């Protein structure tokens, strides 16, 4: 299990670092925008509870404070955000590091960095074209179909990018382009009525902030997993040689 162990060590260490960096960036970037949007969301909830009976729109599958446990605002909420950031980025680290080991790429920070950019394209950029990063209080189509479209788009884009990177025939290049375009031809689940009290300018700022934060995070995750995997796999090799000596 030496390969698996090296991937896990590398992903956990990288995820921990990226999770902490991203939490710090979010405190200045996305979190203030989310809190601002929640003021509009709560105002809309109070003013127009009738909107909930609209069968097509499911803007409030959950309502803040109305049902279920939720962390208290302030330290507790931010602590959970930090913890989930670390968990998420460890997960992304496992995906990324597993992928470049699967394709037998030599692990260097630069190789990992390039894979990180691919991860950004497949997991943030492509799904974000159809389902842009959304602030609370913005009505959206039912959650299930959106999640399925999101996962399908990420997988198709990753497969397409993989074909472009590792196959050299024009026919497969065409297949790759088709794979990347197809989810957008199918189209993400959308609502016909997108009325919201959240200002357009706030949403736009949120989209830009999320994309830039994510770009930096993926670039960092890629470079770190590349460098750490190199370090851990060499240690494992040395330990293995010593055991047989």
């Amino acid at each position, binding site marked *: 299990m030496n390969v698996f162990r090296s991937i896990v060590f590398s992903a956990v260490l990288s995820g921990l670092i990226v999770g902490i960096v991203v939490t710090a960036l979010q405190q200045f970037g996305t979190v203030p925008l989310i809190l601002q949007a929640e003021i509009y969301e709560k105002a809309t909830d109070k003013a127009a509870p009738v909107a909930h009976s609209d069968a097509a729109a499911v803007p409030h599958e959950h309502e803040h404070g109305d049902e279920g446990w939720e962390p208290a605002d302030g330290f507790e909420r931010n602590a959970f955000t930090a913890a989930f*950031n670390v968990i*998420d980025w460890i997960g992304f680290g496992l995906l990324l590091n597993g992928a470049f080991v699967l394709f037998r790429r030599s692990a260097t920070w630069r190789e990992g960095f390039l894979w990180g950019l691919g991860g950004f394209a497949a997991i943030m950029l492509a799904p974000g074209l159809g389902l842009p990063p959304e602030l609370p209080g913005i009505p959206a189509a039912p959650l299930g179909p959106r999640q399925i479209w999101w996962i399908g788009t990420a997988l198709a884009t990753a497969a397409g990018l993989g074909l472009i990177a590792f196959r050299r025939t024009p026919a497969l290049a065409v297949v790759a382009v088709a794979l990347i375009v197809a989810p957008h031809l199918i189209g993400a689940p959308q609502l016909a009525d997108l009325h919201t009290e959240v200002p357009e300018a706030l949403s736009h700022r949120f989209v830009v902030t999320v994309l830039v934060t994510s770009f930096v995070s993926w670039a960092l995750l890629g470079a770190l997993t590349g460098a750490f995997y190199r370090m851990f796999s060499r240690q494992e090799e040395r330990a293995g040689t010593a055991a047989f000596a």
Partner: protein
Amino acid sequence: MPMPATNVLSPAASKPATRAASTTMQALFAILFGALIIGVAGFSHIEAVHNAAHDTRHSNAFPCH
């Protein structure tokens, strides 16, 4: 044509193949493990998990609400 010197039964020849298959399995297992983590942290429909991960989900552009 002389026969190739390698013998599939000799440890020297079979070891690299086993090793390659094992590397593939371990890499796939890591990917599966990662997907599972993302699935729970970013896609769970459980109310408490959603609320705890709320700002993370919005900030990572996972479908939320």
